[in-house]
């Protein structure tokens, strides 16, 4: 005779660690909304009227708020991903392990570089318009 406790659907509410895990996984939701918005933008290029209505949609406060949330979600997901990366792909140079903190710092530096690149491109295109 024996018994086996069942794992209930609320397992992730029982520990802070699991809640943070679910938060990490939930970051996909606002990002899906952002991707759908951008996809709609591509389809709206079919005509100037559609593009104008898409621009109006993108300027709505609740859409801006959700896209702001998507930015925060992406940064949080990046934070968790960068922390995990040195554990999944440890880099060894000879017998020495590259310090995880250095690998995390390099990834954030790459994020910064991409932001600077896009700001520069965005600034140039604004100038061209």
């Amino acid at each position: 005779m024996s018994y086996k406790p069942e794992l209930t659907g609320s397992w992730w509410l029982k520990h802070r660690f699991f809640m943070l895990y679910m938060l990490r996984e939930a970051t996909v939701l606002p990002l899906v909304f952002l991707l759908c918005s951008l996809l709609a933008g591509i389809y709206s290029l079919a005509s100037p009227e559609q593009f104008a209505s898409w621009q109006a949609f993108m300027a709505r406060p609740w859409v801006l708020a959700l896209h702001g949330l998507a930015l925060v979600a992406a940064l949080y997901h990046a934070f968790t991903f960068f922390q995990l990366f040195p554990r999944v792909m440890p880099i060894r140079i000879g017998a020495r392990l590259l310090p995880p903190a250095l690998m995390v710092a390099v990834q954030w530096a790459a994020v910064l570089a991409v932001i600077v690149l896009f700001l520069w491109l965005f600034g140039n295109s604004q100038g061209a318009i």
Partner: protein
Amino acid sequence: MRNCSIAVQRYLPHEHAEPFWQHFTVPFDESTSILDALNYIKEELDPSLSFRWSCRMAICGSCGVMVNGIPKLGCKDFLRNYLPRNYLASESTAAVSAAEIRIQPLAHFTVERDLIVDMNEFLVHLEAVKPYLITDAGADETPLEKHAQTLAQTNKQTPAQLAKYKQFANCINCGLCYSACPQFGLNPEFVGPAAIALAQRYNLDSRDQGKAARMPVLNGHNGVWSCTFVGFCSDVCPKHVDPAAAVNQGKVESAKSMLIQMFTGRG
């Protein structure tokens, strides 16, 4: 000595169909471990309590239990960790009711009696990944020659080669990571953290040639891809093995193995 309240989840299948809680008052000091408390209960309060233990020094891996819902080694976890910091030093006894420590059998396993679980559910997965050195050296030689060659090769390893897998070799098979893993809780067929960590440990060993034999298990539906990197397994590991890292390094290996198989037909 101060007293502390401990609740133990009992299961006596011949007397009660359902598990039930039993409450005890246990004297303790700064050095009293959860295992010491359980031994006190068994020796002084209720000899019918059943639990596993052996070495008392976090080597044998047999005294795993859930303490306040978190998998812990009974010998490596202390009652003082669950009480207010100044509790032992303070003169007041008011803090005695501050917290009752709840001890349960390891989660996600079948419970046989009190704190004793059926570890076979883990051992089956462990066996499946062939956690031992496999060498294909000297396949054409006689058994004696093969044995001599294996012996000659076994000890050849540089510190750099050892460093690649040493962390994963510290696993003591206590099963705490399985109790921390919700994926194992939802799907008991998942090979699980410790078994995959040991598969990775042997795959990374320069003396081993058994990777091809292990990869089908890791590539399978219940292998590495069932892990969603919750990471709690590494948090509870008493030997700092970091099984979550091993499992996810296994995903990299699995992806490589599948790509190689796709282009060459060989795993």
